[in-house]
Protein backbone atom coordinates (compact mmCIF):
# COMPACT_ATOMS: atom_id res chain seq x y z
CA UNK A 1 0.00 0.00 0.00
CA UNK A 2 1.54 3.26 -1.01
CA UNK A 3 1.40 6.25 1.20
CA UNK A 4 1.05 9.58 -0.40
CA UNK A 5 3.38 12.16 0.81
CA UNK A 6 2.32 15.65 0.05
CA UNK A 7 5.02 18.13 -0.24
CA UNK A 8 4.39 21.74 0.46
CA UNK A 9 6.07 24.23 -1.77
CA UNK A 10 8.43 26.46 0.18
CA UNK A 11 7.44 30.09 0.08
CA UNK A 12 9.32 31.93 -2.61
CA UNK A 13 11.95 34.19 -1.11
CA UNK A 14 10.79 37.78 -0.90
CA UNK A 15 12.50 40.03 -3.35
CA UNK A 16 15.64 41.67 -2.01
CA UNK A 17 16.25 39.08 0.71
CA UNK A 18 19.74 37.63 1.00
CA UNK A 19 20.38 34.91 -1.51
CA UNK A 20 20.56 31.36 -0.29
CA UNK A 21 23.82 29.58 -0.86
CA UNK A 22 27.23 29.35 0.66
CA UNK A 23 28.92 31.72 -1.71
CA UNK A 24 26.03 33.93 -2.64
CA UNK A 25 25.35 37.43 -1.55
CA UNK A 26 22.84 40.05 -2.46
CA UNK A 27 23.59 42.56 -5.17
CA UNK A 28 23.62 45.28 -2.58
CA UNK A 29 26.27 43.54 -0.53
CA UNK A 30 28.50 42.94 -3.48
CA UNK A 31 28.09 46.49 -4.63
CA UNK A 32 28.99 47.76 -1.18
CA UNK A 33 32.16 45.72 -0.97
CA UNK A 34 33.32 46.06 -4.50
CA UNK A 35 31.97 49.49 -5.24
CA UNK A 36 34.76 51.76 -4.03
CA UNK A 37 37.39 49.64 -5.75
CA UNK A 38 35.45 49.58 -8.96
CA UNK A 39 34.90 53.31 -8.84
CA UNK A 40 38.58 53.93 -8.42
CA UNK A 41 39.42 51.43 -11.07
CA UNK A 42 36.90 52.86 -13.51
CA UNK A 43 37.78 56.45 -12.87
CA UNK A 44 41.50 56.28 -12.46
CA UNK A 45 42.58 53.35 -14.52
CA UNK A 46 40.02 52.32 -17.06
CA UNK A 47 38.98 55.79 -18.06
CA UNK A 48 42.50 57.24 -18.27
CA UNK A 49 43.63 54.39 -20.48
CA UNK A 50 40.73 55.02 -22.80
CA UNK A 51 41.46 58.70 -22.67
CA UNK A 52 45.08 58.10 -23.59
CA UNK A 53 43.98 56.10 -26.59
CA UNK A 54 41.62 58.90 -27.46
CA UNK A 55 44.31 61.51 -27.01
CA UNK A 56 46.69 59.64 -29.20
CA UNK A 57 44.43 60.28 -32.12
CA UNK A 58 44.16 63.95 -31.37
CA UNK A 59 46.22 66.99 -30.82
CA UNK A 60 45.47 68.14 -27.28
CA UNK A 61 46.50 71.69 -26.64
CA UNK A 62 46.27 73.87 -23.58
CA UNK A 63 42.83 74.40 -22.09
CA UNK A 64 41.88 71.02 -23.48
CA UNK A 65 41.51 72.21 -27.00
CA UNK A 66 41.32 68.95 -28.89
CA UNK A 67 41.57 68.47 -32.61
CA UNK A 68 41.25 65.17 -34.34
CA UNK A 69 44.36 64.24 -36.28
CA UNK A 70 43.79 60.60 -36.89
CA UNK A 71 46.91 58.55 -37.33
CA UNK A 72 49.07 61.58 -37.84
CA UNK A 73 50.73 61.34 -34.46
CA UNK A 74 51.67 57.74 -35.08
CA UNK A 75 53.08 58.29 -38.52
CA UNK A 76 55.02 61.25 -37.24
CA UNK A 77 56.50 59.15 -34.45
CA UNK A 78 57.38 56.23 -36.62
CA UNK A 79 58.87 58.13 -39.52
CA UNK A 80 60.18 61.47 -38.38
CA UNK A 81 60.95 61.28 -34.73
CA UNK A 82 64.63 60.50 -34.39
CA UNK A 83 64.62 61.13 -30.71
CA UNK A 84 61.90 58.55 -30.26
CA UNK A 85 63.92 55.96 -32.09
CA UNK A 86 67.02 56.88 -30.14
CA UNK A 87 65.04 56.43 -26.96
CA UNK A 88 63.69 53.10 -28.19
CA UNK A 89 67.18 51.97 -29.03
CA UNK A 90 68.45 52.93 -25.63
CA UNK A 91 65.56 51.36 -23.81
CA UNK A 92 65.62 48.11 -25.75
CA UNK A 93 69.38 47.70 -25.39
CA UNK A 94 69.15 48.52 -21.73
CA UNK A 95 66.30 46.09 -21.26
CA UNK A 96 67.63 43.13 -23.19
CA UNK A 97 71.05 43.16 -21.63
CA UNK A 98 69.80 44.31 -18.27
CA UNK A 99 67.14 41.64 -17.98
CA UNK A 100 69.52 38.80 -18.69
CA UNK A 101 72.12 40.14 -16.25
CA UNK A 102 69.41 40.82 -13.71
CA UNK A 103 68.03 37.30 -13.65
CA UNK A 104 71.36 35.53 -14.04
CA UNK A 105 72.84 37.67 -11.32
CA UNK A 106 69.94 36.98 -9.01
CA UNK A 107 70.26 33.26 -9.65
CA UNK A 108 73.98 33.39 -9.00
CA UNK A 109 73.53 35.20 -5.71
CA UNK A 110 70.81 32.78 -4.70
CA UNK A 111 73.05 29.83 -5.50
CA UNK A 112 75.78 31.32 -3.35
CA UNK A 113 73.44 31.46 -0.41
CA UNK A 114 71.91 28.10 -1.24
CA UNK A 115 75.31 26.45 -1.14
CA UNK A 116 75.23 26.82 2.61
CA UNK A 117 77.13 30.06 2.84
CA UNK A 118 77.81 31.29 6.36
CA UNK A 119 75.45 33.94 7.72
CA UNK A 120 73.06 33.27 4.88
CA UNK A 121 70.14 34.80 6.73
CA UNK A 122 71.95 38.01 7.48
CA UNK A 123 73.31 38.30 3.97
CA UNK A 124 69.86 37.79 2.57
CA UNK A 125 68.61 40.78 4.53
CA UNK A 126 71.54 43.00 3.61
CA UNK A 127 71.46 42.11 -0.07
CA UNK A 128 67.77 42.90 -0.26
CA UNK A 129 68.13 46.42 1.13
CA UNK A 130 68.67 48.33 -2.14
CA UNK A 131 65.35 46.95 -3.39
CA UNK A 132 63.55 48.90 -0.73
CA UNK A 133 65.26 52.20 -1.35
CA UNK A 134 63.69 54.95 -3.36
CA UNK A 135 65.14 55.63 -6.80
CA UNK A 136 65.97 59.09 -5.54
CA UNK A 137 68.24 57.73 -2.85
CA UNK A 138 69.80 55.14 -5.12
CA UNK A 139 70.22 57.58 -7.98
CA UNK A 140 71.84 60.32 -5.98
CA UNK A 141 74.22 57.97 -4.21
CA UNK A 142 75.39 56.55 -7.49
CA UNK A 143 75.69 59.98 -9.10
CA UNK A 144 78.15 60.70 -6.34
CA UNK A 145 79.89 57.36 -6.76
CA UNK A 146 80.32 58.05 -10.44
CA UNK A 147 81.62 61.55 -9.92
CA UNK A 148 84.77 62.16 -11.88
CA UNK A 149 86.78 63.88 -9.20
CA UNK A 150 85.78 62.43 -5.90
CA UNK A 151 83.51 59.53 -6.78
CA UNK A 152 84.44 56.16 -5.33
CA UNK A 153 84.76 54.37 -8.66
CA UNK A 154 87.43 56.66 -10.00
CA UNK A 155 89.07 56.91 -6.61
CA UNK A 156 89.46 53.14 -6.48
CA UNK A 157 90.77 53.05 -10.03
CA UNK A 158 93.35 55.60 -9.18
CA UNK A 159 94.24 53.76 -6.02
CA UNK A 160 94.72 50.56 -8.00
CA UNK A 161 96.97 52.36 -10.41
CA UNK A 162 94.41 52.08 -13.17
CA UNK A 163 93.96 55.85 -13.38
CA UNK A 164 93.99 55.61 -17.12
CA UNK A 165 90.57 53.98 -16.99
CA UNK A 166 88.99 56.93 -15.26
CA UNK A 167 85.86 58.16 -16.91
CA UNK A 168 83.19 60.66 -16.54
CA UNK A 169 80.85 57.76 -16.25
CA UNK A 170 77.65 59.66 -16.53
CA UNK A 171 79.01 62.42 -18.65
CA UNK A 172 80.33 60.35 -21.49
CA UNK A 173 77.67 59.32 -24.01
CA UNK A 174 79.40 55.99 -24.51
CA UNK A 175 79.34 54.94 -20.88
CA UNK A 176 76.32 56.72 -19.49
CA UNK A 177 73.71 54.08 -20.34
CA UNK A 178 75.85 51.29 -18.92
CA UNK A 179 76.51 53.27 -15.78
CA UNK A 180 72.79 53.68 -15.26
CA UNK A 181 72.36 49.97 -15.95
CA UNK A 182 74.86 49.04 -13.26
CA UNK A 183 72.96 51.16 -10.78
CA UNK A 184 69.67 49.62 -11.80
CA UNK A 185 71.10 46.13 -11.39
CA UNK A 186 72.51 47.09 -8.02
CA UNK A 187 69.04 48.02 -6.88
CA UNK A 188 67.21 44.98 -8.22
CA UNK A 189 69.55 41.99 -7.97
CA UNK A 190 68.40 41.42 -4.42
CA UNK A 191 64.82 40.99 -5.56
CA UNK A 192 65.65 38.33 -8.10
CA UNK A 193 67.90 36.69 -5.59
CA UNK A 194 65.17 36.32 -3.01
CA UNK A 195 62.79 34.78 -5.49
CA UNK A 196 65.39 32.39 -6.87
CA UNK A 197 66.35 31.45 -3.34
CA UNK A 198 62.77 30.63 -2.43
CA UNK A 199 62.46 28.58 -5.60
CA UNK A 200 65.68 26.74 -4.83
CA UNK A 201 64.48 25.84 -1.38
CA UNK A 202 61.25 24.59 -2.91
CA UNK A 203 63.11 22.06 -5.00
CA UNK A 204 62.46 18.53 -3.77
CA UNK A 205 65.48 17.38 -1.85
CA UNK A 206 65.16 13.80 -2.99
CA UNK A 207 65.49 14.76 -6.64
CA UNK A 208 68.75 16.52 -5.86
CA UNK A 209 69.84 13.45 -3.92
CA UNK A 210 68.99 11.26 -6.88
CA UNK A 211 71.08 13.54 -9.07
CA UNK A 212 74.04 13.09 -6.75
CA UNK A 213 73.75 9.34 -7.00
CA UNK A 214 73.55 9.78 -10.75
CA UNK A 215 77.08 11.15 -10.72
CA UNK A 216 76.28 14.85 -10.86
CA UNK A 217 78.86 17.25 -9.58
CA UNK A 218 77.66 20.71 -8.56
CA UNK A 219 77.95 22.05 -12.06
CA UNK A 220 76.10 19.16 -13.70
CA UNK A 221 73.41 19.41 -11.04
CA UNK A 222 73.03 23.08 -11.82
CA UNK A 223 72.83 22.71 -15.56
CA UNK A 224 70.83 19.52 -15.90
CA UNK A 225 68.56 19.59 -12.88
CA UNK A 226 68.32 22.89 -11.05
CA UNK A 227 67.97 25.33 -13.90
CA UNK A 228 65.49 23.23 -15.87
CA UNK A 229 63.39 22.80 -12.75
CA UNK A 230 63.54 26.50 -12.04
CA UNK A 231 62.38 27.34 -15.49
CA UNK A 232 58.90 28.69 -14.62
CA UNK A 233 60.34 30.93 -11.94
CA UNK A 234 63.11 32.18 -14.20
CA UNK A 235 60.69 32.96 -16.97
CA UNK A 236 58.50 34.86 -14.53
CA UNK A 237 61.49 36.86 -13.40
CA UNK A 238 62.55 37.57 -16.94
CA UNK A 239 59.12 38.92 -17.77
CA UNK A 240 58.89 41.04 -14.64
CA UNK A 241 62.37 42.41 -15.15
CA UNK A 242 61.69 43.05 -18.79
CA UNK A 243 58.55 45.04 -18.13
CA UNK A 244 60.19 47.02 -15.36
CA UNK A 245 63.11 48.02 -17.53
CA UNK A 246 61.07 48.88 -20.55
CA UNK A 247 59.17 51.38 -18.42
CA UNK A 248 62.28 52.89 -16.87
CA UNK A 249 61.84 56.52 -15.84
CA UNK A 250 62.85 57.39 -12.32
CA UNK A 251 66.47 56.38 -12.36
CA UNK A 252 67.28 58.05 -15.63
CA UNK A 253 65.45 61.20 -14.62
CA UNK A 254 67.40 61.44 -11.42
CA UNK A 255 70.83 60.49 -12.67
CA UNK A 256 71.15 61.93 -16.15
CA UNK A 257 67.86 63.45 -17.25
CA UNK A 258 68.23 61.58 -20.49
CA UNK A 259 71.61 63.02 -21.28
CA UNK A 260 74.31 63.37 -22.23
CA UNK A 261 73.02 64.02 -25.69
CA UNK A 262 70.10 61.60 -25.46
CA UNK A 263 72.47 58.77 -24.60
CA UNK A 264 70.25 57.67 -21.75
CA UNK A 265 66.93 58.90 -23.00
CA UNK A 266 64.28 56.28 -22.47
CA UNK A 267 60.84 56.18 -23.95
CA UNK A 268 59.30 57.10 -20.61
CA UNK A 269 61.47 60.14 -20.08
CA UNK A 270 60.79 61.19 -23.63
CA UNK A 271 57.06 60.93 -23.08
CA UNK A 272 57.33 63.10 -20.02
CA UNK A 273 59.48 65.66 -21.74
CA UNK A 274 57.23 65.75 -24.75
CA UNK A 275 54.26 66.32 -22.49
CA UNK A 276 55.62 68.84 -20.02
CA UNK A 277 58.93 70.18 -21.17
CA UNK A 278 58.27 70.98 -24.78
CA UNK A 279 57.79 74.40 -26.32
CA UNK A 280 54.39 73.43 -27.68
CA UNK A 281 51.95 71.89 -25.23
CA UNK A 282 50.32 68.92 -26.89
CA UNK A 283 49.30 65.86 -24.94
CA UNK A 284 48.22 64.00 -28.02
CA UNK A 285 51.68 63.27 -29.29
CA UNK A 286 53.14 61.82 -26.12
CA UNK A 287 49.93 59.85 -25.64
CA UNK A 288 50.52 58.31 -29.02
CA UNK A 289 54.04 57.40 -27.98
CA UNK A 290 52.69 55.83 -24.82
CA UNK A 291 50.16 53.77 -26.75
CA UNK A 292 52.73 52.66 -29.27
CA UNK A 293 55.21 51.73 -26.61
CA UNK A 294 52.70 49.80 -24.53
CA UNK A 295 51.73 47.85 -27.62
CA UNK A 296 55.37 47.04 -28.25
CA UNK A 297 55.86 45.88 -24.67
CA UNK A 298 52.82 43.63 -24.83
CA UNK A 299 53.97 42.19 -28.15
CA UNK A 300 57.43 41.51 -26.78
CA UNK A 301 56.09 39.85 -23.64
CA UNK A 302 53.70 37.63 -25.56
CA UNK A 303 56.51 36.65 -27.91
CA UNK A 304 58.86 35.91 -25.05
CA UNK A 305 56.44 33.79 -23.08
CA UNK A 306 55.47 31.87 -26.15
CA UNK A 307 59.07 31.14 -27.03
CA UNK A 308 60.24 30.25 -23.56
CA UNK A 309 57.18 28.63 -22.12
CA UNK A 310 57.16 24.95 -21.47
CA UNK A 311 54.80 22.81 -23.32
CA UNK A 312 53.81 20.64 -20.37
CA UNK A 313 53.46 21.33 -16.69
CA UNK A 314 56.43 20.92 -14.50
CA UNK A 315 54.83 19.13 -11.62
CA UNK A 316 56.80 18.14 -8.60
Amino acid at each position, binding site marked *: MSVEITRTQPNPAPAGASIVGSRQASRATIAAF*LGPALVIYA*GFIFYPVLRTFYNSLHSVGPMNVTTFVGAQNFTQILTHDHTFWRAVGNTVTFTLIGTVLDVLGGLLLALCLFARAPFARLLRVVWFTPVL*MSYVVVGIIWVWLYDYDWGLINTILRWLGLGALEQSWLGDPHTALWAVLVTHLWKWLGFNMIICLAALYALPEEVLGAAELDACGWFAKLVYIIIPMLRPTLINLLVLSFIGKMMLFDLVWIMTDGGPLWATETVSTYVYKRAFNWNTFDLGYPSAIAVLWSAMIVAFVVLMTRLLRQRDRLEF
Partner: protein
Amino acid sequence: MAARLGRHHAIELWLGHLRRTPLLLFLILYTVVTGGPFLWVAMMSIRTTPEIFNDPYGLPVPAHWGKFADAWTISKYGTYFWNSLIVVGCAVALLTIIGSMAAHCLARYRFRGSRFVRVAILSGMILPPQLLILSLFQILLQFGLYNSLPGLIIAYVSTQLAMTVYILEGFFAQLPQDLFDAARMDGYSEFEIFWRITLPIGMPAVFTTIILNFIILWNEFLYAIVLLTDDDKRTLPLGIMHFMGAHQLDVGMIATGLMISIAPVILMYAFFSDILIKGMTAGAVR
Protein backbone atom coordinates in the same frame (compact mmCIF):
# COMPACT_ATOMS: atom_id res chain seq x y z
CA MET B 1 95.32 2.29 6.47
CA ALA B 2 93.58 4.49 9.01
CA ALA B 3 96.37 7.05 8.89
CA ARG B 4 96.20 7.21 5.13
CA LEU B 5 92.46 7.69 5.33
CA GLY B 6 92.91 10.39 7.93
CA ARG B 7 95.32 12.34 5.76
CA HIS B 8 93.06 11.89 2.77
CA HIS B 9 90.21 13.28 4.79
CA ALA B 10 92.28 16.21 5.93
CA ILE B 11 93.19 17.06 2.36
CA GLU B 12 89.53 16.80 1.40
CA LEU B 13 88.63 19.24 4.12
CA TRP B 14 91.32 21.66 3.08
CA LEU B 15 90.31 21.44 -0.55
CA GLY B 16 86.79 22.08 0.55
CA HIS B 17 87.88 25.23 2.27
CA LEU B 18 89.89 26.28 -0.73
CA ARG B 19 86.91 25.84 -2.92
CA ARG B 20 84.96 27.97 -0.54
CA THR B 21 87.45 30.83 -0.34
CA PRO B 22 86.48 32.44 -3.63
CA LEU B 23 82.89 32.04 -2.52
CA LEU B 24 83.59 33.75 0.77
CA LEU B 25 85.51 36.52 -0.95
CA PHE B 26 82.63 37.06 -3.29
CA LEU B 27 80.15 37.13 -0.43
CA ILE B 28 82.16 39.74 1.41
CA LEU B 29 82.69 41.79 -1.72
CA TYR B 30 79.05 41.81 -2.64
CA THR B 31 77.98 42.65 0.89
CA VAL B 32 80.33 45.61 0.87
CA VAL B 33 79.04 46.70 -2.50
CA THR B 34 75.45 46.44 -1.33
CA GLY B 35 75.69 47.90 2.12
CA GLY B 36 78.65 50.21 1.68
CA PRO B 37 76.92 53.05 -0.10
CA PHE B 38 74.30 53.35 2.63
CA LEU B 39 76.93 53.41 5.28
CA TRP B 40 78.68 56.12 3.35
CA VAL B 41 75.57 58.25 3.07
CA ALA B 42 74.89 57.74 6.74
CA MET B 43 78.36 58.99 7.55
CA MET B 44 78.06 61.94 5.19
CA SER B 45 74.75 62.95 6.68
CA ILE B 46 76.45 64.06 9.85
CA ARG B 47 79.41 65.76 8.25
CA THR B 48 79.51 69.23 6.79
CA THR B 49 80.00 69.69 3.08
CA PRO B 50 83.47 71.21 3.34
CA GLU B 51 84.51 68.26 5.50
CA ILE B 52 83.19 65.89 2.85
CA PHE B 53 84.97 67.55 0.00
CA ASN B 54 88.12 67.53 1.99
CA ASP B 55 87.97 63.82 2.64
CA PRO B 56 85.02 62.15 0.96
CA TYR B 57 85.38 58.79 2.63
CA GLY B 58 86.48 59.78 6.06
CA LEU B 59 84.78 59.01 9.30
CA PRO B 60 82.33 61.49 10.76
CA VAL B 61 84.61 62.40 13.61
CA PRO B 62 83.07 65.65 14.63
CA ALA B 63 79.56 64.28 14.23
CA HIS B 64 77.19 67.11 13.45
CA TRP B 65 73.89 65.73 14.62
CA GLY B 66 72.49 69.24 14.45
CA LYS B 67 72.38 68.94 10.68
CA PHE B 68 69.20 66.96 11.00
CA ALA B 69 67.49 69.82 12.74
CA ASP B 70 68.76 72.20 10.10
CA ALA B 71 67.63 69.95 7.34
CA TRP B 72 64.25 69.68 8.92
CA THR B 73 63.63 73.38 9.17
CA ILE B 74 65.98 75.40 7.01
CA SER B 75 66.17 73.06 4.08
CA LYS B 76 62.48 72.30 4.44
CA TYR B 77 62.95 68.56 4.69
CA GLY B 78 60.49 68.69 7.54
CA THR B 79 57.78 69.96 5.24
CA TYR B 80 58.57 67.35 2.66
CA PHE B 81 58.53 64.65 5.31
CA TRP B 82 55.11 65.65 6.56
CA ASN B 83 53.72 65.84 3.07
CA SER B 84 54.99 62.36 2.37
CA LEU B 85 53.59 61.11 5.62
CA ILE B 86 50.16 62.58 4.99
CA VAL B 87 49.95 61.41 1.43
CA VAL B 88 51.28 57.94 2.06
CA GLY B 89 49.41 57.51 5.31
CA CYS B 90 46.06 58.41 3.79
CA ALA B 91 46.70 56.41 0.66
CA VAL B 92 47.66 53.32 2.64
CA ALA B 93 44.63 53.66 4.87
CA LEU B 94 42.31 53.96 1.90
CA LEU B 95 44.04 51.12 0.11
CA THR B 96 43.67 48.87 3.09
CA ILE B 97 39.97 49.53 3.47
CA ILE B 98 38.99 49.55 -0.16
CA GLY B 99 41.35 46.78 -1.12
CA SER B 100 40.37 44.42 1.65
CA MET B 101 36.69 44.89 0.97
CA ALA B 102 37.14 44.18 -2.70
CA ALA B 103 39.39 41.23 -1.98
CA HIS B 104 36.92 39.79 0.49
CA CYS B 105 34.13 40.13 -2.04
CA LEU B 106 36.10 38.47 -4.81
CA ALA B 107 37.35 35.71 -2.56
CA ARG B 108 34.08 34.82 -0.90
CA TYR B 109 31.28 35.41 -3.33
CA ARG B 110 30.50 33.96 -6.69
CA PHE B 111 28.54 36.21 -8.95
CA ARG B 112 28.12 36.83 -12.60
CA GLY B 113 31.03 38.79 -13.91
CA SER B 114 33.28 38.08 -10.94
CA ARG B 115 35.92 36.62 -13.20
CA PHE B 116 35.81 39.66 -15.39
CA VAL B 117 36.09 42.01 -12.45
CA ARG B 118 39.02 40.06 -11.06
CA VAL B 119 40.90 40.12 -14.34
CA ALA B 120 40.14 43.79 -14.78
CA ILE B 121 41.38 44.83 -11.38
CA LEU B 122 44.46 42.65 -11.45
CA SER B 123 45.43 43.78 -14.92
CA GLY B 124 46.19 47.08 -13.29
CA MET B 125 49.34 45.50 -11.95
CA ILE B 126 51.08 45.30 -15.28
CA LEU B 127 49.79 48.48 -16.81
CA PRO B 128 52.60 50.79 -17.97
CA PRO B 129 52.33 54.07 -16.09
CA GLN B 130 52.79 56.04 -19.30
CA LEU B 131 49.38 54.90 -20.43
CA LEU B 132 47.84 56.42 -17.38
CA ILE B 133 49.79 59.36 -16.29
CA LEU B 134 49.09 61.88 -18.98
CA SER B 135 45.38 61.32 -18.81
CA LEU B 136 45.46 61.29 -15.05
CA PHE B 137 47.11 64.67 -15.27
CA GLN B 138 44.27 65.90 -17.44
CA ILE B 139 41.60 64.46 -15.18
CA LEU B 140 43.02 65.89 -12.00
CA LEU B 141 43.44 69.24 -13.69
CA GLN B 142 39.82 69.14 -14.71
CA PHE B 143 38.63 68.43 -11.20
CA GLY B 144 40.90 70.95 -9.58
CA LEU B 145 42.87 68.22 -7.89
CA TYR B 146 46.06 68.92 -9.74
CA ASN B 147 48.94 70.04 -7.58
CA SER B 148 47.13 68.95 -4.44
CA LEU B 149 47.80 66.33 -1.87
CA PRO B 150 44.32 64.78 -2.11
CA GLY B 151 44.83 64.42 -5.84
CA LEU B 152 48.07 62.57 -5.31
CA ILE B 153 46.48 60.43 -2.63
CA ILE B 154 43.80 59.24 -5.00
CA ALA B 155 46.35 58.64 -7.74
CA TYR B 156 48.43 56.55 -5.34
CA VAL B 157 45.41 54.53 -4.32
CA SER B 158 44.75 53.77 -7.96
CA THR B 159 48.32 52.62 -8.61
CA GLN B 160 48.55 50.24 -5.71
CA LEU B 161 44.99 48.92 -5.66
CA ALA B 162 45.68 46.04 -8.02
CA MET B 163 48.60 44.68 -6.06
CA THR B 164 46.76 45.05 -2.77
CA VAL B 165 43.73 43.19 -4.03
CA TYR B 166 45.96 40.51 -5.55
CA ILE B 167 47.77 39.76 -2.33
CA LEU B 168 44.70 39.96 -0.11
CA GLU B 169 42.45 37.96 -2.40
CA GLY B 170 45.01 35.20 -2.60
CA PHE B 171 45.12 35.03 1.16
CA PHE B 172 41.42 35.43 1.85
CA ALA B 173 40.55 32.74 -0.65
CA GLN B 174 42.46 30.24 1.43
CA LEU B 175 40.36 30.83 4.52
CA PRO B 176 38.11 27.82 4.95
CA GLN B 177 34.59 28.43 3.74
CA ASP B 178 33.27 26.54 6.78
CA LEU B 179 34.13 29.50 9.00
CA PHE B 180 31.92 31.74 6.98
CA ASP B 181 29.11 29.24 6.69
CA ALA B 182 29.12 28.85 10.44
CA ALA B 183 29.05 32.59 10.94
CA ARG B 184 26.14 32.94 8.57
CA MET B 185 24.24 30.30 10.46
CA ASP B 186 24.99 32.17 13.64
CA GLY B 187 23.24 35.13 12.16
CA TYR B 188 26.06 37.48 11.33
CA SER B 189 25.50 40.00 8.59
CA GLU B 190 27.83 40.04 5.64
CA PHE B 191 29.60 43.13 6.84
CA GLU B 192 30.00 41.71 10.32
CA ILE B 193 31.51 38.61 8.78
CA PHE B 194 34.00 40.75 6.96
CA TRP B 195 34.81 42.80 10.01
CA ARG B 196 34.94 40.04 12.59
CA ILE B 197 36.29 37.12 10.63
CA THR B 198 38.06 38.00 7.41
CA LEU B 199 39.97 40.97 8.75
CA PRO B 200 41.17 39.53 12.06
CA ILE B 201 42.19 36.19 10.58
CA GLY B 202 43.59 37.79 7.48
CA MET B 203 45.61 40.26 9.55
CA PRO B 204 49.02 38.91 8.49
CA ALA B 205 48.25 39.51 4.84
CA VAL B 206 46.63 42.86 5.56
CA PHE B 207 49.64 43.89 7.56
CA THR B 208 51.90 42.81 4.75
CA THR B 209 50.07 44.99 2.27
CA ILE B 210 50.16 47.92 4.65
CA ILE B 211 53.90 47.72 5.00
CA LEU B 212 54.49 47.05 1.32
CA ASN B 213 52.24 49.88 0.20
CA PHE B 214 53.89 52.21 2.64
CA ILE B 215 57.36 51.56 1.37
CA ILE B 216 56.44 51.57 -2.29
CA LEU B 217 54.49 54.82 -2.00
CA TRP B 218 57.02 56.42 0.29
CA ASN B 219 59.56 55.99 -2.48
CA GLU B 220 57.25 56.87 -5.35
CA PHE B 221 58.57 59.43 -7.76
CA LEU B 222 56.94 59.52 -11.19
CA TYR B 223 53.37 60.32 -10.23
CA ALA B 224 54.51 62.82 -7.67
CA ILE B 225 56.64 64.70 -10.10
CA VAL B 226 53.86 64.89 -12.65
CA LEU B 227 51.08 65.79 -10.28
CA LEU B 228 52.74 68.21 -7.85
CA THR B 229 54.44 71.49 -8.55
CA ASP B 230 54.24 73.63 -5.42
CA ASP B 231 57.24 73.43 -3.19
CA ASP B 232 55.23 73.15 0.01
CA LYS B 233 53.33 70.23 -1.36
CA ARG B 234 56.33 68.26 -2.43
CA THR B 235 56.80 64.79 -1.09
CA LEU B 236 60.19 63.73 0.18
CA PRO B 237 61.63 62.26 -3.03
CA LEU B 238 60.61 65.37 -4.90
CA GLY B 239 61.89 67.62 -2.17
CA ILE B 240 65.29 66.00 -2.27
CA MET B 241 65.48 66.31 -6.03
CA HIS B 242 64.46 69.92 -5.86
CA PHE B 243 67.01 70.61 -3.21
CA MET B 244 69.60 68.79 -5.24
CA GLY B 245 68.75 70.90 -8.23
CA ALA B 246 69.11 74.14 -6.33
CA HIS B 247 72.06 73.21 -4.13
CA GLN B 248 73.85 70.58 -6.09
CA LEU B 249 77.11 71.03 -4.29
CA ASP B 250 75.76 70.96 -0.77
CA VAL B 251 76.44 67.26 -0.59
CA GLY B 252 76.30 67.19 3.16
CA MET B 253 72.81 68.59 3.34
CA ILE B 254 71.61 66.37 0.55
CA ALA B 255 72.98 63.39 2.39
CA THR B 256 71.12 64.44 5.52
CA GLY B 257 67.95 64.66 3.52
CA LEU B 258 68.58 61.22 2.07
CA MET B 259 68.95 59.82 5.56
CA ILE B 260 65.65 61.38 6.60
CA SER B 261 64.08 59.70 3.62
CA ILE B 262 65.67 56.35 4.31
CA ALA B 263 64.95 56.34 8.03
CA PRO B 264 61.33 55.11 8.03
CA VAL B 265 62.17 52.44 5.48
CA ILE B 266 65.10 51.15 7.48
CA LEU B 267 62.98 51.22 10.60
CA MET B 268 60.30 49.12 8.99
CA TYR B 269 62.88 46.84 7.48
CA ALA B 270 64.56 46.30 10.81
CA PHE B 271 61.34 45.11 12.39
CA PHE B 272 59.56 43.53 9.50
CA SER B 273 62.24 42.27 7.13
CA ASP B 274 60.65 38.85 6.82
CA ILE B 275 57.22 40.27 6.02
CA LEU B 276 58.70 42.70 3.54
CA ILE B 277 60.76 40.13 1.74
CA LYS B 278 57.90 37.70 1.54
CA GLY B 279 55.41 40.34 0.53
CA MET B 280 57.47 41.93 -2.18
CA THR B 281 58.12 38.62 -3.79
CA ALA B 282 54.58 37.33 -3.46
CA GLY B 283 53.31 35.69 -6.53
CA ALA B 284 56.53 35.68 -8.44
CA VAL B 285 57.49 32.15 -7.45
CA ARG B 286 55.52 29.65 -9.41
